[in-house]
């Protein structure tokens, strides 16, 4: 009887891991905030807030505050890990327009990696004057 009980106990432990699916991976990424659309087109040129885009004459022109404008239009914001062009970029599942004033800043995003390349952010911070400032949009939860 006791042997059966102990076997049942062991079985419960073994299957507990499959009954309750693993929760999404928790992650903290430190890097630079980018507008994913322009950065995706020309990463090096469009890493900051001023972007290079083709003008009417076909020549490349500087567009100041382009990242801010794109985020303000709702283009998803991303964070480039480590703040170096070409590194892994995560799309931040949050309202982009709420982050428009922080584009190209050093940021720290804490959340859950729910999709490949997408973070549900529970906390978004940017570095200003050497200090981390919480800029998490109010309607996140």
């Amino acid at each position, binding site marked *: 009887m006791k042997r059966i009980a102990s076997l049942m106990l062991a079985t419960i432990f073994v299957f507990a891991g499959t009954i309750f699916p693993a929760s999404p991976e928790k992650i903290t990424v430190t890097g630079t905030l980018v507008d*994913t659309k322009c950065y995706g087109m020309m990463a090096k040129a469009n890493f900051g807030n001023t972007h290079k885009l083709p003008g009417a004459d076909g020549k490349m022109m500087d567009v100041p505050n382009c990242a801010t404008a794109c985020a303000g239009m709702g283009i*998803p914001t991303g964070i480039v890990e480590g703040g170096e062009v070409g590194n892994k970029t995560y799309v931040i599942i949050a309202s982009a327009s709420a982050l428009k004033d922080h584009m190209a800043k050093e940021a720290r995003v804490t959340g859950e990696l*729910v999709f490949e*390349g*997408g973070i549900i952010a529970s906390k978004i911070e940017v570095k200003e004057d050497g200090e981390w400032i919480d800029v998490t949009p109010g309607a996140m939860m």
Partner: protein
Amino acid sequence: MSITSNIARLGVPTAIGLLFLSACSSKPDVSDPASTREASLYAQGDTISVNGLLVDTRCFAANRQNLGMDHPDPVPTSQTGPACARYCALQGFPVGVAVDGPEGPVWILLSSPQVLADYMEQTVRVRGVVRSEGVLTPQRVEMQTEDGSWTFIL
């Protein structure tokens, strides 16, 4: 039979179970997330086409039953009433394409979610450029109509 031997007999299978449990629920080292990712199926820059339902990534990520327009388990807890997906897209949460239903992969679309807010829950066909695994810059978005044909929406 002494209590000590009973504990010993129960303890061995329990310990085995715990080992299995920890193995099942173990997570990769998140200190270096890039190192834990599998190689991408798609190369960056590939142009691909994906079909699926247009979803609000915020609510869908929290509960995969939040697949339609009205969500049984909305994330912004203050959000009540119908058309949660539209509400989230209008708020600016990125929109995605859920391929193969609730358990399938999701492609996050790098476009303005507000523009697609009126098409949430619709079956769409998106042609776009892969930015990374699961992330797509759409070049063309079409919606399937009732007669099965496709109509251009973006």
